[in-house]
């Protein structure tokens, strides 16, 4: 197994771990972190292929993902804070009544 294959496997592992976390964990903050994990799994893949194809496009995309992730977290954390203050819990099941 060469380096690229290992990195792809690592990226897939990170993504799968993150997805699993989102599905099985109940704590909102943990779910958010798992989502970051998934994003980073994708980032690893981008960097890997960017290096392999001697192009900077992939690397630039990684920065885009960083920015989007930062923006997302900046919105998500205050929402979670407000929700936690109102519901007095971080359990996702308590937020079911938010559905549209």
């Amino acid at each position, binding site marked *: 197994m060469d380096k690229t294959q290992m990195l792809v496997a690592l990226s897939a592992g990170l993504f799968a771990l993150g*997805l699993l976390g*989102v*599905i*099985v964990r*109940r704590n909102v903050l943990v779910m958010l972190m798992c989502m970051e994990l998934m994003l980073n799994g994708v980032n690893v893949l981008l960097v890997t292929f960017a290096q392999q194809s001697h192009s900077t496009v992939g690397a630039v995309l990684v920065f885009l993902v960083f920015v989007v992730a930062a923006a997302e977290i900046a919105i998500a954390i205050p929402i979670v804070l407000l929700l936690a203050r109102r519901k007095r819990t971080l359990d*996702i099941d308590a937020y079911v009544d938010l*559905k*549209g």
Partner: protein
Amino acid sequence: MDRLLTVIVLLPLAGFIINGLLGNRLGKRFVSVVGCGLPVLAFAAAIVCLLDLRTSGFAPLVETAYTWAVIGDRSFEISFYFDRLTAVMVLIVTGVGSLIHIYSIGYMKEDTSYARYFAYLNLFLFFMLLLVLGRSLLVLFVGWEGVGLASYLLIGFWFDDPDKARAGKKAFLTNRIGDAGFLLGMFVLFQALGTLEMDKINTAFTSGTPPMVSASLVGILLFIGACGKSAQIPLHVWLPDAMAGPTPVSALIHAATMVTAGVYLVARLSGIYMHAPEASAAIAAVGVMTAFFAATIALVQTDIKKVLAYSTISQLGLMFVALGVGAYGVAIFHLYTHAFFKACLFLGAGSVIHALGGEQDINKMGGLARKIPITFATFAVATAAIAGIPPLAGFFSKDEILWFAFASSFGGSTLLYVVAAGTALLTSLYMFRLLWRTFFGASRLSPEAAHHVHESPPSMTGILIVLAALSAVGGFVALPHFLEPLLPLPEVRAELVAFEAPLLYVSVALAFAGLAGAAFLYGGNAERAERLRRGFPMLHRVLTGKYFVDEAYERFFDRPLFWISERVFLQFGDRKLFDGTLHGIAGLGRRTASALARVQNGDLHLYAFLVLAGIVATLAWSWHHG
């Protein structure tokens, strides 16, 4: 001058556009000048064309106005073709047409839709000229449909009366049936010959190697179209109802010109019919039946215009008899004389109706000869002409038809002659009956009509005099002889030649027998006719009921069609099939949505799981199909 044929056609169109768009603003005087002036100009142009034709030794004038479409290596052109036959038709259409336009000035003076009337009349003339001048069947068909449209518009001219609007609709729909046959005939011809130009079609059929298509099939299909337009059995039902239109319209469209389009069509395509004995026999049979039955109905009608309408159907039947025995020139001859005396009769009837303030029932007329003498005199001349009293126009043409019905080697027979001669007798009888009931005897007018009765203005009586003069002397033009190079007369069976003179006397005798019969029956108080009516109540009922053809159509076509439309197309097709399918699809969507909506329960874990399932499914799919 070049392009004169195009000019003839376009002049009435210009009149239609000017009067149609601006007529209401410009006043009646302007409308009259444009509406009558342009047809008169067209008539003058037609005479110039005839002179051109003569100087060119009667070689047909051909003019291409416009290339309509080029499909593959075939091009469809709007081109005009002017030969002897066209010349006769164009002169009748523009000549009689112009006279009737001028007559209309007086007749329609009080009408509020004066400009609309003249616009429609000019539109009719435009399409009629397109019909007779078109070189290709396609152009003829455009004119054919166009005159149908103009006829519909003019029958339903007073469309605020639902009965009149319905009569227009009936005419239009009945004609559609004929047009279906016409179109099929055109398709078959085009497939076989690759051209629709009528001179080429005729040449193709008359040349040594006949085309690979049955002349009889084409002939019958086209004749179905002619049946619709020329009101032959079984498509004759629209013409009597068409009398709902203004009377000059009945004279122009439903007597002199449009209804003769079927006769023109068959004569124009004589090349086909000469090689289609079966189709010709069918034409003669339908023609003679129509002539006879329409004449019997005309015997008992009491509406002055209805009598004339059935008389028109009957005369058209006689023209078809001539066509059926191959005497195409004679049919055109009768068409030409008929245009004069029937126009004169209709316009005379219009003058009577005008004088009586709208009364059309001959039971409420009588004794009008003294009160409206000019109308009476012209009406009497035209009646004598249609009855076949020599030496008026109708005598010559009708006698020739009878002669060829008897002696033509192309389908003439004694039976055909006997029925046609019987029709001639009936014609004379019902026409003189009409004359007697309208103009002689004691007055049966209602008091207000009697007070109101007056002779028509000179613009109307003048036209009547001109037409009566033409009905009197029109027969001296040897039209069949003029047309002979184009439409040769059929060979007369040698053994029958000796009968020509005796049959001539028979014709004269028949005409006078009708006159005498009418005078005998309807003289005095018409009590003899009344006794005759009581003697045969059943027969009278059948005749006044017009053989109940309308009722039969109602029962056997209308009602089943209504039933099919209501039950099959509306209840089943529209409501169940189409609406049902659409409602079903909508219901399916709604039910699916309500089932899927249950998934949206706010549980983020479920959502994420479904995302995972989606990704896995997508990957699995691409794995398999990658």
